[in-house]
Structure formats: structure tokens, C-alpha cells
């Protein structure tokens, strides 16, 4: 007993060191559900408050670029509107149903905190549960896919960025509809990898990659990026390097994407799978 006490006293620094490091490691390994903890929710509200102040004062420097993006998006929407107006005459009569065909709704939001330099990057938005944001909503900017909401407090929400090594996105090659799984490899914030593409599929540099719409999070056809030509072979599949269309360092305005029929779809899919 005495020698045990002596031992503990002698190595108390080392023992405390090991205990603290073990606690830290447990915290790290259980961090995938950290956003459910009350403590973190409180901290997020405080840091969200400060980030918003900081963002307000720096957002002016990006106005020119934001304007250009908005103009080009307006242009694209106007063209699409033109197409709709001229092509909508293929139905009999004058009935215009504007509700039942809509699956997704959109809400604009501002990025108030963002990073690209970690392995697991998260983005904070100035929209929270009081604006109707819920976990699992998709987030896109006018240039492409940004991430998925993983945590919501009253005024803020936290988005798992595409630049997070845990993030997976079902994406397809627009030209031939082959789909695979897109993930970030944690190295360059401009590039991601599209894997599980069969190697007989002919691809060329510059092919557009879009969301496949196979998950209930994003509608099909949202821009993700373009192939750079780099590829890695493994077994029957290749993984292709994708230049992301979103520059995460310049992210200011984004859209939250809510799927109105998501619950119905998930219930049906689960019911059949059971």
C-alpha cells in the first residue's frame, strides 16, 4: 500500500498527463454528436454573436464580387424563366398548377463563420430554428453545393462543409449520368474526389459534375464542379479529381434547401427496405 502511494506520488505528473490526454481523446472520438450537447449549443450562440459582428464589418470588402455573382445568377434565372414562359403551352387549357410540382423550397442565408484549413470544416449561418431551419437541410451557393446542416440553435445553424472529410455527396457526371460518391480528401480546398465510377466510363477533362438527386437533401442538377483530368485507379473503379465550383474562401451568401416531401420519401424508402 505504501509503495503504491509512493509510486503514485512519484509519477503524479505523468499519471495526470495520461489521464488528461485520455479525456481529450474520448472527447475527440465522441465529437460526431457534439452538436447535441447543451454546452456546445450555448457556446455556439456566444461565438455566433461575435462572428456576426466581425462578418458585418468585413462583408463590405466583398460587395463587388457578390454583386457580380448575383447578376450572373439573375441572368441564368431570367433565361430559365424565358424558357418556361414559351414552353408552358403544352398543357390543355389555362390551368397553371404552381404548388403540387414543387419539391424543394429555398431560403437565403449569410455565412458568418467559415474555415477551409481544418480536416473537418464547419460553416455557421445566421439562420436558425426560428427561421425554420432543421438538421439535414442542404446548403448551396449560387456557384454550387456547399454542405449540409448538422446543428441548429435558435438564431444560428452549423453546416458541415463539403470541405469536411466526413462529408459524402451523391454526385453524377452530367454528360452521361454515371453517379458516384464525392468526398474531400483533406488536402487542397479547391479539389475533391469523385469515387466509385466504373473504369469503362469515358470521361474527359472539364466534364461537369452535378448532384445526382439520389439523396433527399439536394435536388438533382446542382453544380458541384468540373473534372480536372486527374484520376486514380483501384479495382473496377476509378476516382476522379474534381475542381470544386464553389470557392469556399469567398463564401458570403448561400441558400438553404428544404425538401418538402422528404419525410414522405424517407418513410416510403424505409418501409420497403424493411
Amino acid at each position, binding site marked *: 500500500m505504501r509503495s503504491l502511494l509512493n509510486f503514485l506520488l512519484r509519477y503524479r505528473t505523468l499519471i495526470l498527463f495520461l489521464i*488528461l490526454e485520455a479525456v*481529450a481523446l474520448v472527447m*475527440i472520438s465522441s465529437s460526431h454528436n457534439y452538436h447535441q450537447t447543451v454546452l456546445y449549443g450555448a457556446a455556439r450562440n456566444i461565438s455566433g454573436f461575435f462572428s456576426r459582428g*466581425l462578418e458585418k464589418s468585413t462583408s463590405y470588402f466583398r460587395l463587388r464580387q457578390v454583386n457580380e455573382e448575383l447578376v450572373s445568377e439573375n441572368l441564368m434565372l431570367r433565361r430559365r424563366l424565358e424558357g418556361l414562359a414559351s414552353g408552358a403551352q403544352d398543357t390543355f387549357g389555362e390551368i397553371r398548377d404552381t404548388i403540387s410540382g414543387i419539391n424543394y423550397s429555398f431560403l437565403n442565408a449569410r455565412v458568418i463563420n467559415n474555415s477551409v484549413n481544418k*480536416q473537418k470544416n464547419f460553416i455557421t449561418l445566421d439562420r436558425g430554428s426560428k427561421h425554420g431551419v432543421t438538421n439535414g437541410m442542404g446548403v448551396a451557393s449560387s456557384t454550387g453545393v456547399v454542405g449540409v446542416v448538422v446543428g441548429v440553435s435558435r438564431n444560428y445553424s452549423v453546416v458541415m462543409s463539403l470541405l469536411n472529410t466526413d462529408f459524402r455527396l451523391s454526385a453524377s457526371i452530367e454528360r452521361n449520368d454515371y453517379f458516384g460518391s464525392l468526398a474531400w480528401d*483533406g488536402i487542397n480546398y479547391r479539389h475533391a474526389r469523385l469515387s466509385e465510377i466504373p473504369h469503362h466510363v469515358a470521361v474527359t477533362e472539364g466534364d461537369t459534375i452535378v448532384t445526382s438527386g439520389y439523396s433527399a437533401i439536394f435536388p438533382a442538377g446542382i453544380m458541384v464542379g468540373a473534372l480536372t483530368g486527374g484520376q486514380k485507379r483501384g479495382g473496377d473503379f476509378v476516382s476522379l479529381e474534381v475542381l470544386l465550383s464553389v470557392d469556399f474562401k469567398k463564401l458570403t451568401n448561400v441558400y438553404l434547401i428544404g425538401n418538402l416531401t422528404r419525410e414522405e420519401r424517407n418513410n416510403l424508402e424505409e418501409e420497403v427496405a424493411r
Partner: protein
Amino acid sequence: MNSLLRYGGAFLILIVLQLLIFNNIEFSGYVNPFVYVMFILILPVSIPSWIMLLLSFLTGSVIDLFSGTMGVHAFATVMAGFMRPWVLSLNVTAEASEPDMSPSSYRSGLRWFLIYTVLVVLVHHLALFLVELFSLRGFGHTLLRVLLSTAATTFFIVLFDFIRPRR
């Protein structure tokens, strides 16, 4: 009491600087300075090692809490706090052995402080980036990040050391 105020003040200032300014600085995805490590560096030489470890854990946890990286900074900072006495004994000088002193370039010379800072910061950053990645995948890339960030952190810590109040 006086020293409690001094170190408490340094703690607050460094945490706020880290969260509001340095967490938003990054160059090309490689370099980001973590100046809050300076708090571990400037604690008195004579501080008992168990207090040192607890303070390291506290500092890292506060940073973790506000940047949403549970445990990562706590792990790295405790590692740095554990190595500090060893680094201190490694390049001890006549002046540096004064027990109640806070390590600084003013007391012990720029060269001494620089080596001391680089070593502790290197331990911290190595632990930080490896634990964040949680694998040895792309080790060369990680090492580059560690070295560049260590240089940036050391630069800012030495800069702050020049402007902090002398006693």
C-alpha cells in the same frame, strides 16, 4: 493576487485574440497561427507541473469549445504543457533559473526565448495536426503545415513578447 490578475489578464487577451483574429487568418490553407499557446509559455518557471497540466487542459478546452473542435486543442496543449519543463531544463541559462520568473526574451535573451518558443510550439502543432487528422495519411503534407504554422505562431509570440508589460 497581483500575479493572478496578470496571468488571468494574459489568458483572456490571448483567448480573445485567438478566437476573433487568429482563427480567421489563414494563408493558402497551410498556415494558421495559434498564438494562445503563448499562455503556456509565459507561466512562471516554478509553477508545479500538475497545475501546469490542468491549466493547459483548460486553455485548450476553451479554444475547443468556441471553435467546435472538441478535444483536439486540449490534447495538443496538454502535450505542450507536459513537454515545457523538459524544454526549460534543456536550455537553461543562469538568468533563466530564477524560480518566480516568467520566461521572456527581456530576461533571458532573444535567442533563448526563440529556441524555447519554437520547441514548445512545434510539439503543440505536431500533436494538433496529427490528432486532427487522426491518421498518418499524407504525412508530408501535414508536416509542411506543422512547420509553416510553427514559424507563423513563433513570429507572433515573439512579437507579443516585445510589447507585453515588463515587470
